[in-house]
């Protein structure tokens, strides 16, 4: 309950003239909002404490770095997904886009060398982003439907590119397997990339004119349009940024695994979306932060990791993810209903 209220703020009802109560109300709101973020961090800490008590392997630097590595790819695309949700958009094609960009990367790297592989992967990710953006902006197709179509199409396209068989990628270690030693702990490049991407999206969303306008677009598209905000352009940029994170994620995945298979990237869109929504973003736009997304993705990664360490049957991982997502969605809906009731008055 506390979470739902906090993410949404509360009205003091209609028809009440200006009173100092508004000030108290907003103080309460901001205090509760702080608690929402605390709640997420609290869950993360509780899970860590629980798994540390139950397994001697959990709280070791090697394992914690593994948790971060497992969350890195999802966190990178989740950052872009947060920006999309803030503007009331979504991209469920990212899983297939990672598969397709990875396949193109592997094939080009094999046939023409690594540099061409990188160029081709970026081009492939941008092509999908471009198709999504054009369909959504020019033809005004709903973003869920558009990206559902590209999700299906590019899963098939990636199988075409790799002829239905896995393709090995030799000698591309940097993004996925290189580690830097910092204070005696080996930090993988993927984790550094994750932190950089989160930092960039944080600055863009919280401090820039672009970010501010994206929140406005998501919260009230009509008001944004009347205020002269170029909705199409801003949303288009978000899909292009998503394409950039997809290219990055694809190369990290390929580098980590050393190969691309017909299932590479599968279900990553759902993992990212789960993280973004558990992280406080709303499908109805205007809400969400990359820090929330990062914490939520760490919760999911810790949960997966801990359950494996405790040798819990793997089906429980999926059940626990589903429960978390359902909980977050219910909270979002509760908060939303409150807002709607107030606006109807």
């Amino acid at each position: 309950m506390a979470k739902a209220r906090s993410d949404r703020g509360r009205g003091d009802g209609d028809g009440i003239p200006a009173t100092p109560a508004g000030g108290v109300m907003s103080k309460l709101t901001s205090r509760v909002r702080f608690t929402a973020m605390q709640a997420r961090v609290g869950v993360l800490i509780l899970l860590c404490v629980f798994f540390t008590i139950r397994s001697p392997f959990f709280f070791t630097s090697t394992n914690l770095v593994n948790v971060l590595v497992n969350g890195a790819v999802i966190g990178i695309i989740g950052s872009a997904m947060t920006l999309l949700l803030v503007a009331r958009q979504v991209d469920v094609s990212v899983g297939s886009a990672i598969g397709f960009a990875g396949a193109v990367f592997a094939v080009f790297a094999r046939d023409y060398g690594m540099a061409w592989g990188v160029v081709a992967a970026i081009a492939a990710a941008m092509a999908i982003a471009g198709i999504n953006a054009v369909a959504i902006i020019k033809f005004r197709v709903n973003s869920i439907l558009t990206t559902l179509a590209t999700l299906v199409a590019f899963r098939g396209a990636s199988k075409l590119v790799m002829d239905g068989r896995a393709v090995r990628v030799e000698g591309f270690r940097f993004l996925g397997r290189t580690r830097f030693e910092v204070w005696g702990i080996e930090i993988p490049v993927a984790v550094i990339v994750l932190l950089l991407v989160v930092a960039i999206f944080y600055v863009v969303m919280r401090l820039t004119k672009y970010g501010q306008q994206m929140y406005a677009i998501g919260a009230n598209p009509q008001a944004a349009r009347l205020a002269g905000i170029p909705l199409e352009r801003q949303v288009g940029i978000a899909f292009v940024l998503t394409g950039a994170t997809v290219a990055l994620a694809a190369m990290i995945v390929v580098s980590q695994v050393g190969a691309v298979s017909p299932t590479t990237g599968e279900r990553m869109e759902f993992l990212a979306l789960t993280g973004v929504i558990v992280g406080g973003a709303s499908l109805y736009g205007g809400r969400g932060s990359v820090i929330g997304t990062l914490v939520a993705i760490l919760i999911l990664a810790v949960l997966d990791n801990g359950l494996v360490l405790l040798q819990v049957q793997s089906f429980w991982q999926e059940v626990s993810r589903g429960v978390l997502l359902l909980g977050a969605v219910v909270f979002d809906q509760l908060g939303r209903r409150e807002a709607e009731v107030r606006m109807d008055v």
Partner: protein
Amino acid sequence: MSYVTVPGAPLLDIRGLSKHYGTIRALDDVSFTLDRDEIVGLLGDNGAGKSTLVKCLAGAVIPTAGEVYLHGDRKVFSTPAEARDEGIETVYQQLALVDIFDIPANFYLGREVVRSGWRGKLGILNRRLMRKRARAAVEALPARFPNLDAEIETMSGGQRQVVAISRAGFWGGRLLLLDEPTAALGVKEAAAVLEMIGAMVSSSDTDMAMIVISHNMEHVWSICTRLLILRQGRLVADLPKSETTRQEVVAHITGATA
């Protein structure tokens, strides 16, 4: 801000403005002029063409025919932004505020100020400057807000309306268009909003005029100096308030004089 002005020309001059949707004449050959400091009530029944007229002036609807002159200079608006650049501010019936933003962010919606130097090139917002200017503007108003940082969604309908109107006044300009500013409000709140509109015009030292659309003649009557009455897309009466009566105005609205 400086605009092109022709000496002696009226602030607003509309000539033969029409908007046709197929065979429907939403607005039919409307002409009138408006001088600075005038507050004009635009009255008419549903479908009389009030909103269409305002939207044509605001750049939200492109007229089928007719000309609009501001200070003698002919203007053609194809987007709301173009009208705004010429000093026409509109307060829409559905408010057009972003609920999750505070007052400064709503004031600067779509016109956000970035910092100077390299941070500005990166599009980094200058929140402090926007807040300072919005605070100064709000403090000059008769309406009091308990907390400038409160999000709009924590405010009542009347407070929101005041924010929307203050925003239009904040950007000033030449012409303020208010589309049903009191329609969704209770009696007390409507009175407060009207008081605030009156105060805004009387305190403004700029050359400004205002067109207020309303169904409610009483509301318009209390603040206007002149009344324009539309019926079936045509301008049927243009009366100074001092030379007319409520009965006459109602008769024009309903067409009982014809």
